């Protein structure tokens, strides 16, 4: 059976302590940049130590655009070293990386130039991850302008063999990606999913519960069960209660083989 993990996206700031109410067979993913060392050390001691399920980390992404010429990449490296130390201290299973951020002026340079810059930086972070023994996962994005379309995203994993994929299902919906094909193409390179729903192509990235938006989740889980049945399933929801998350996790359990 797949591992089901719950993102701290529904437990921001002081609400992080409420993650203790989640059943311990559900894992925990934390948005690591959203707290300082004191909060994490005390929260993770309670949430993660001796938990019989998996702990994962969403790496930093705010004010960090790997596609931008203005990105202070040495600072990004330091921030990821900080993140990787938490990975090792608490025995995490993956760290999620955004390959780029919001691009306000796509015409400023060619997509090829941006793609080259992103790949170079992902590669450096991948090398750093190898040094730290970290399983680094690159996520698909859903900004109006994306550097990696579906085909280019799949190609990241040919170009950089040491990283694996995390597919955000909601992001796929917004960008009208062919989800069964994506899962077939990447197969076991998909190490984890962000499960979330929304109202489809070009709509907002609102991280609804599975089944509330337009996702054909039966089709998704058919492909999942066929192509990557061991991938971790991270429920990354916004504005939901513990009870709603538990109900959603129970629904997911009925859909995985």
């Amino acid at each position: 059976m797949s591992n089901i993990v719950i993102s701290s996206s529904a437990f921001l700031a002081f609400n992080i302590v409420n993650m203790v109410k989640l059943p311990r067979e559900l894992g925990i993913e934390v948005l690591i940049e959203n707290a300082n060392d004191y909060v994490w050390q005390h929260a993770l001691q309670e949430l993660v130590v001796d938990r019989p399920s998996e702990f994962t980390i969403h790496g930093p992404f705010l004010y960090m655009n790997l596609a931008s010429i203005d990105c202070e990449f040495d600072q990004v490296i330091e921030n990821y070293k900080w993140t990787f130390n938490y990975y090792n201290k608490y025995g995490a299973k993956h760290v999620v990386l955004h390959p780029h951020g919001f691009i306000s002026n796509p015409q400023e340079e060619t997509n090829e130039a941006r793609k080259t810059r992103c790949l170079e930086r992902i590669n450096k972070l991948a090398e750093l991850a190898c040094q730290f023994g970290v399983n680094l996962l690159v996520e698909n994005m859903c900004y109006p302008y994306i550097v990696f379309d579906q085909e280019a995203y799949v190609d990241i994993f040919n170009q950089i063999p040491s990283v694996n994929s995390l597919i955000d299902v909601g992001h796929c919906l917004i960008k009208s990606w062919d989800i069964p094909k994506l899962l077939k193409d990447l197969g076991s390179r998909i190490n984890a999913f962000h499960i979330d729903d929304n109202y489809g192509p070009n709509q907002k990235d609102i991280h609804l519960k599975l089944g509330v938006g337009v996702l054909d989740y039966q089709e998704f889980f058919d492909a999942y069960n066929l192509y990557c049945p061991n991938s971790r399933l991270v429920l990354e929801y916004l504005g939901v209660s513990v009870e709603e998350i538990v109900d959603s996790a129970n629904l997911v359990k009925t859909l995985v083989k």
Partner: protein
Amino acid sequence: MDIIISHLPYLGTWISAMNGIPKEYGIEVFIEYGNDYFWKYTIKELMDGRTGKLSIHGPFCQINLAAKDCNWQDVLETYKWSFDCCNKYNAVHCVCHPHAAMPDYEGFQLIDNQKLAVERVNKLNEIAKSQGVEMLVENMPYPTLVLQQDDFVNYLKPIEDIQFLIDVGHAMLHNWDITKLLADLGDRIRAYHVHENFRDADSHLKVGEGPLDWKQFFSDYKKYSPEARLVLEYMHGPIDSIIENIALVKSYL
């Protein structure tokens, strides 16, 4: 008098929405909900060209200064880090919670826990002063209070170096006599958390959404602490509605 808007409705990824706050208003951030990188870039962007002030809400998550088993050494370190942030980013104050929920253990004596909280607040304030930071002690909302109104004033006011932030919503939640509180503490009150509720929960409603007599409050404010900063600590946005509410606040002034 400065008007400052709290980060409360914009936690996590949503903080960038605070860029939409007009530049004449300040911003108060919950400093523990970000790491060094996060604050370096977030504050740089939020404060760019802003004439309003930055203030910092000090750490309180999993911290209870009134509890015997408070991780005191770790608390000292996280406060020192917060004070460093105040200096790095020119924050005008750092808010301190003197206690969390009422401690509960065998042999519990309220007076011991009150003294412990006050002793620790005093120590933190000494460190703040040594780092050139103005720390403000806030009144709390918990169902049972370690420091009720009389104790809050009687324990803390005699320590001359201690300054205060009065949270209006917390005061009304516990039916504190707000007029008396402002008269007692006067200009030792350096800031307010402005919000209200229906005395049933700490719901952080906007001015005018609940039952508080704001005309009375602002009359007392002008009489006793007219220079104190007003930090609008609302649970919800959007920014347009907060801006609209500022017009109402100004009408009382």
